[in-house]
């Protein structure tokens, strides 16, 4: 019997190819999108999960701003961990990380760049449950100059041979030598602190490039500190105790803790280990996933119900042959399960094949493995439930036809669930319009961020930085920055060269900070964090930063002075009303006096997601970056590639071995919006898919309603209606429905997107045209879809329609 049901169902699907195609495609696209988004969401939500991770917390610093504390720094002091452990017995263990970004290794003259790692306490392995493939967790990180490599890095450096006991040169602002003592099993990529190597804490004692970090102190907070608490610790109570305790005799800051697992989606503090994800983004995507899936089911319900009108005769015959309602419902359900199963199979194939594109488009690194599949199983249950529910409605409608009526072929669209179908279409368009408005607002905001003047000109500016790995090569250049500069200036297209510690868009890396500053008027501010960095005098000119008072530093033979340049915001903080008066005033921080030589207009150092911060720019020729301004003709005439090659040659001539990096400042600044752009891309993809599904449904639906109204159209035409009249008759309902959907969608999406925009300090307006564009797009798409069918009907010869009755 089930065999026969399946046979009937499959023959029905084969016979009604358009119907089957639309249904299966709609469902496949819906399920595939749902699965993709769920994989993404699961990946985001599973950050930093390992055995025992629920008992791990990160220690961070709150700073007093006004009267309230707010998160000020993701990193804490090297004393924080040991002190907390000593103070609170519920803390079992702590581990400190000194982050080493962009680290280079040399093994027998082979260079391996771009590694991320950390200097950590030996207790690392008792806090983080990361197993060692080789070596012993008890002493791998005990001795100074020990290093533990992640499997893939070890293999890259040493190949197949065992690296244990081998030595390596490691460069991070200077060289040191380490011995491999362990191999770490590859760590899953979804962790907020990605390390492919670990160096023992004792190494800090002798590492010259990293001074002042080893000795216990309350002045350098450059450590990520993680604590592991005992099971069943009352974490709120512990947090209260930590907040209330003043360890370092400083009332303007305090220690605080947050759960390790929550960091990736919920923490966005200065000095994070990496740009974190965002809970609200995940929620948005989740909502989109469900909307798309439900849209595709609504489609199915709609099409199946409409199609059921055509199948009334079949139902009549079956009933006359003795079928009872449950049997008919069962059969109809079987059909929808069949369709959904085909769709699930297609969706799976689609997911597997589109995953690489999805990954490259969204910058994610999702994979399909047994764990992922297992994690998706509950959703499969949800999909199955939706399948049954979406199959049930048409099944009930279908099986409810009276055989007498059904056999007469008198079941009409108007009599069965027309209102429900209308409702479904309105819901579909409502969702579509909401998604459209969302897409437009996100795109508009990103465009806004990109086009907003930032108070500095980053065009055609390239930052060069490098690490000298061996100095053996004889050269006129030696290690002198000034000579590099003049050498670079000789290159064609180079307009200006200046050294600087960082630049707008450089993020928190390379930015120093001070809490505690004395203003010229004698006020002491110990509450707020102030950011500061070093530049050479030509910096402001090179980046076209405008002075509102005073001027840049004077070139001096010493290449540094106690002069600083501040921004307007800083001046305002210092309560200097007349900016001209700020010049030559003295500011105290870090125990030194600094003389203001000029005030620049506010510029965006961090991108437009955050408000402008007060900034102090110090005079010091830092070798961290060489900023080179090129003439704008470089792109059109020579091309950046050849010029950059020449710059690299200058380095290669100077040093036998070096690691040479460059960054385009404008690109790096824009890259602060990468996450938002990826979000926008994902939003766009899924909106297009949603529209596709909705239009497929509409297309399918009209192809049937038009068939049903063939006779009506024929009669109208015979009675003198022209094509325009007919089109108007057929389309005016859709216009009405879309208008209704639009009216509901506007306030909801307006409110939602307003909430989303709150995540940005600088935001675009949600103009009226956003709604107009979304509404019109939906309308045009709907009318095009519908008219394709209506036009065919309107053009048909009425005689054909009327003669078969």
């Amino acid at each position, binding site marked *: 019997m089930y065999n026969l049901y399946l*046979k009937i169902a499959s023959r029905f699907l084969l016979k009604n190819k358009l119907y089957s195609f639309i249904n299966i495609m709609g469902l496949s696209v819906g399920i595939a999108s749902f699965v993709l988004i769920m994989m993404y969401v699961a990946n985001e939500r599973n950050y930093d999960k390992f055995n025992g991770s629920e008992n791990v917390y990160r220690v961070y610093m709150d700073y007093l701003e006004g009267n309230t504390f707010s998160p000020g720094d993701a990193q804490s002091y090297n004393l924080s961990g040991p002190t907390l452990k000593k103070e609170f017995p519920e803390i079992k263990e702590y581990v400190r990380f000194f982050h080493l970004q962009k680290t280079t290794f040399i093994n027998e003259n082979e260079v391996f760049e771009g590694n991320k790692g950390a200097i950590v306490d030996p207790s690392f392995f008792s806090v983080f449950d990361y197993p060692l493939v080789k070596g012993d967790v008890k002493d791998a990180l005990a001795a100074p100059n020990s290093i533990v490599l992640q499997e893939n890095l070890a293999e890259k450096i040493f190949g197949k041979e065992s690296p244990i006991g081998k030595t390596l040169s490691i460069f991070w602002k200077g060289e040191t030598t380490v011995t491999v003592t362990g191999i770490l099993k590859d760590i899953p990529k979804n962790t907020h602190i990605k390390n492919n190597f670990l160096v023992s804490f004792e190494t800090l004692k002798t590492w010259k490039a990293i001074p002042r970090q080893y000795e216990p102190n309350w002045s350098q907070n450059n450590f990520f500190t993680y604590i592991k608490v005992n099971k069943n610790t009352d974490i709120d109570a512990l947090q209260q105790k930590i907040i209330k305790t003043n360890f370092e005799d400083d009332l303007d800051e305090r220690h605080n803790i947050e759960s390790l697992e929550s960091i990736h989606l919920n923490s966005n503090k200065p000095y994070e280990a990496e740009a974190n994800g965002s809970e609200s983004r995940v929620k948005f995507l989740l909502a989109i996933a469900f909307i798309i899936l439900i849209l595709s089911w609504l489609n199915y319900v709609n099409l199946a119900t409409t199609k059921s009108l055509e199948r009334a005769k*079949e139902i*009549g015959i*079956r009933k006359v*042959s*003795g079928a009872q309602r449950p*049997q008919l419902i069962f059969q109809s359900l079987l059909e929808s399960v069949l369709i959904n199963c085909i769709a699930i199979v297609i969706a799976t194939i689609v997911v597997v094949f589109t995953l690489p594109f999805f990954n490259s488009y969204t910058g994610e690194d999702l994979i399909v493995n047994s764990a992922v599949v297992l994690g998706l199983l509950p959703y499969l249950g949800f999909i199955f439930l939706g399948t049954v529910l979406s199959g049930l409605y048409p099944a009930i409608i279908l099986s409810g036809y009276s055989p*007498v009526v059904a*056999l007469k072929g008198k079941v009409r669209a108007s009599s069965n669930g027309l209102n429900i179908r209308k409702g479904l279409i309105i819901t579909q368009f409502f969702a579509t319009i909401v998604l459209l408005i969302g897409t437009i607002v996100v795109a508009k905001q990103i465009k806004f961020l990109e086009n907003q003047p930032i108070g500095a000109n980053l065009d055609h500016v390239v930052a060069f930085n490098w690490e000298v790995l061996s100095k053996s090569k004889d050269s006129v250049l030696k290690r002198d920055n000034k000579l590099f500069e003049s050498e670079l200036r000789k290159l064609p297209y180079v307009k200006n060269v200046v050294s600087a510690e960082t630049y707008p868009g450089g993020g928190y890396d390379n930015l120093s900070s001070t809490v505690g500053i004395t203003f010229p008027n004698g006020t002491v501010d110990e509450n707020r964090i102030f950011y500061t960095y070093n530049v050479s005098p030509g910096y402001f000119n090179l980046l076209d930063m405008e002075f509102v008072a005073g001027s840049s530093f004077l070139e001096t033979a010493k290449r540094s002075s106690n002069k600083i340049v501040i921004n307007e915001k800083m001046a305002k903080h210092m309560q200097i009303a007349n900016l001209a008066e700020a010049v030559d005033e003295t500011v105290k921080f870090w125990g030194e006096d600094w003389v203001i030589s000029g005030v620049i207009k506010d510029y965006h150092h961090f991108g437009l997601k955050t408000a402008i911060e007060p900034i102090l720019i110090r005079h010091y020729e830092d070798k961290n970056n060489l900023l080179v301004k090129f003439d704008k003709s470089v792109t059109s005439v020579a091309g950046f590639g050849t010029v950059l090659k020449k710059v690299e040659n200058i380095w290669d001539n100077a040093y036998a071995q070096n690691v040479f990096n460059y960054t385009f400042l404008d690109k790096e600044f824009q890259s602060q919006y990468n996450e938002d752009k990826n979000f926008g891309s994902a939003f766009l993809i899924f909106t297009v898919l949603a529209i596709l599904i909705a239009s497929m449904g509409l297309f399918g639906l009209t192809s049937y309603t038009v068939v049903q109204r063939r006779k009506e159209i024929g009669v109208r035409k015979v009675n003198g209606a022209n094509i325009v009249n007919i089109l108007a008759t057929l389309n005016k309902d859709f216009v009405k429905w879309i208008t209704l959907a639009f009216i509901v969608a506007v306030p909801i999406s307006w409110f939602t997107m307003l909430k989303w925009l709150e995540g940005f300090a600088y935001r675009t307006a949600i103009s009226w045209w956003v709604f107009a564009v979304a509404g019109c797009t939906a309308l045009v798409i709907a009318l095009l879809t519908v008219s394709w069918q209506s036009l065919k009907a309107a053009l048909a010869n009425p005689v054909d329609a009327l003669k078969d009755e």
Partner: protein
Amino acid sequence: MLLELNNIYKWVQSGGQKIFLLKDINLKVEEGEFISIMGPSGSGKSTLLNIIGMLDVFNEGEYNFLDEPVHSLKEKHRSNLYKQYIGFVFQAYHLLDELTVYENLEMPLLYKKYSSSERKALVADMLDKFNIVGKQNLFPSQLSGGQQQLVGIARALISSPKLILADEPTGNLNSKQGEEIMEIFKELNKDGVTIVQVTHSEKNATYGSRTINLLDGRKI
């Protein structure tokens, strides 16, 4: 006695007023009878046949089928009665387009309790009896009207009902095909099957043992 209709009325409500489709119908059908119902179009023939076949309900009156009071039976019970004793033949054949001849014949058996081997045997029997073994794997659209109606009758007969109800079974056929169908009915009737047919043709009516005439929903 097979069935008995007493004072059957059927009406529909239209614009606040009752439109009578059947008025005061009394009818007794004995087992083994072959009855023809005649009357002008719209006189209520199909309505009456559907009521006899329990596909449609009536508003007033009594209907006893094999001494069971159909008017007071529960839906489930009625449907069991129907399944067991009644077969329908339609003017428009009403075969399922997606199924082959074989599957069309098998279909009613699926809704009754037959094992798969019993089904095979019954279908094979019918195919044989109606000489359509060669057509068993064809779909209805590949058959002529007469052949389709043969399948329709075979399907109605497959679970050996006591009563065959046929609504203008030859209406869509040419006269030669129509004659063949009527011959088959005659044969069936000889074998003891009770037949009630609706027809417009005087000639077809003569195959029956008795004719009932309807006019405006009333027996005359």
